[in-house]
């Protein structure tokens, strides 16, 4: 997993609530057995017509946002299914950070496993950043994980909260399976105890 420390990039405004994982990556693209290559189908049904032509109005099709690395969105981003194809598609497109008032739990977790930083900020901050994102490619935002701040192109800065362990893993690009396997002795002793207390499980 790639580290995430700081990012300065173009932010695409998506002022919609409940952007669900079916919108982010529709089911027909879940048939892959790989993690890569999903970026071209990110937001597929919003981005392309039925015969595969780009819909010019869609934000990521607009010249200013084709290289966006950040998305600013409304409440409950990533609701719906557990498909990790959603963060894979975002990452493959080049999105490394999503900023919203709230996220669905499973999606939020999945982001951290893929080097994407989901940032939760209050509505007033989102309103400011949404306006900033609407300015297009010349207005770059900076997301700094170390200091836990998002800074708009006008210099206005917003602090955000993030779980210390998740931050540590993301900043260092850590494989958490490796970390857990270091605790194998604890798992062994738990299993031995559970075999006595709950032998049917």
């Amino acid at each position: 997993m790639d580290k995430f420390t700081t990012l300065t990039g173009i932010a695409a405004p998506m002022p919609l609530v409940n952007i669900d994982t079916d919108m982010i990556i529709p089911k027909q693209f879940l048939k892959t057995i790989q993690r890569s290559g999903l970026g071209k189908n990110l937001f597929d049904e919003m981005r392309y017509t039925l015969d595969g032509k780009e819909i010019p109005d869609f934000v990521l099709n607009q010249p200013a946002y084709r290289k966006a690395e950040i998305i600013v969105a409304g409440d409950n981003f990533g609701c719906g299914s557990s498909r990790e194809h959603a963060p894979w598609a975002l990452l493959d497109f080049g999105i490394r950070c999503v900023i919203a008032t709230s996220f669905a739990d499973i999606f939020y977790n999945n982001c951290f496993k893929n080097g994407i930083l989901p940032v939760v900020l209050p509505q007033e901050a989102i309103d400011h950043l949404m306006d900033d994102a609407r300015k297009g490619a010349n207005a770059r935002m900076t997301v700094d994980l170390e200091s836990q701040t998002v800074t708009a192109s006008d210099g206005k800065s917003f602090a955000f909260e993030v779980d210390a362990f998740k931050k540590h893993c993301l900043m260092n690009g850590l494989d958490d399976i490796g970390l857990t396997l270091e605790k194998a002795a604890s798992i062994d002793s738990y299993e031995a105890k559970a075999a006595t207390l709950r032998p049917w499980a």
Partner: protein
Amino acid sequence: MAPRTLYDKIWDDHVVHQAEDGTCLLYIDRHLVHEVTSPQAFEGLRMTGRKVRAPEKTIAVPDHNVPTTVDRANAATMTEDSRIQVAALDKNAKDFGINYYPVSDVRQGIVHIVGPEQGWTLPGMTVVCGDSHTATHGAFGSLAHGIGTSEVEHVLATQTLIQRKGKNMKVEITGSLRPGVTAKDITLSVIGATGTAGGTGYVIEYCGQAIRELSMEGRMTVCNMAIEGGARAGLIAPDEKTFAYCMGRPHAPKGAKWEAALAYWKTLYTDEGAHFDKVITIKGEDIAPVVTWGTSPEDVLPITGVVPSPSDFTGGKVEAAQRSLDYMGLTPGQKLTDIAIDTVFIGSCTNGRIEDLRAAAAILKGKKIKVKRAMVVPGSGLVRAQAEEEGLAQIFIDAGFEWRLAGCSMCLAMNPDQLAPGERCAATSNRNFEGRQGRGGRTHLVSPGMAAAAAITGHLTDVRDMMGETV
């Protein structure tokens, strides 16, 4: 010890390790696996030379991609990419030595129906699956939730998950339900009341008389949609109905182990005075048969209502409501019962169990459908066999329904069962998102009885009007 909730108790019994910052390593008792969210996880194991730590606690079944037509043994019924994905699960199950129900096995079905049916899911367990509807298993008083593929790999390799504890939320449904009102109406009404993010960060415990009065099938329907309310997990304290359901299942304990399990299971309830961070109370008698009008599961109204106007909402929901109305092709003020339906889909992990098929068949008996197409997709091969034995299958077939084999089917439309653009469907499934059942398809979520009623009349219908005729 301070009074604890059911969630607290299950959590405490599964903590392997707790770090100073509160991050826990949680032991997983059952890991359910399907073909769509697992191939990259198994590939990760291969690349790092890791094994499945507890293959005996890992259960796989293909469900999302599989065709549900009776000719599905013919490989030509699947697209190449679907075939590869199912073949990958066949191979991974074999290579890693995990429990497996292949497509050809009569026990195959939707992973969340197979788990309880085979007795893998038991009270007090932690259950995970790379699927958000894993919440279903909470009906047994187990802590069950969906995970992403990276976490699937983590559980395969370590039989644990890195977790922080969620908050406790109580959803109490008091009194009894009125006739024609079902578990589906409860769960949709709760989402309508709390919104799709109302449960985010919480584990919900459903309780109250109306919940106690539900069968295990009904309880699974309620917990199944906890995720649509934002909660990763929903659970219900086990009781005699739970124990009776589990007893004798192939993987349920037997003899002395059963007695020991039962003694433990009887301790699984929320202590008097335990703290809940959020409480929602709904009167059972206030719940009507409901239907969704929009493209979010929170867009719930009683069937007696009318299509709302964007001006009925505030904030970001105003624009969302307009977008939903445009997508759904509806006009504010239109009576819900005037909405014409093209297709009826009965099935899914929400409503693909035997009781759901019985409820639909009770409405359909002796009637003919008026919609263009209607299909029943039983949740498992065993549900299908039982429905055939009970004569339900013939009722569906006589009414004009297609009688299918088990799978996820049109709930998410990964297999060939899809809506065409603009096609309108009354579905017993769980999501009405844009494009969910096929690009441009329009979904109205309903209970099995309501789906059957719509099939007969050709428009959304109050099932209570049909019950008069069948009683």
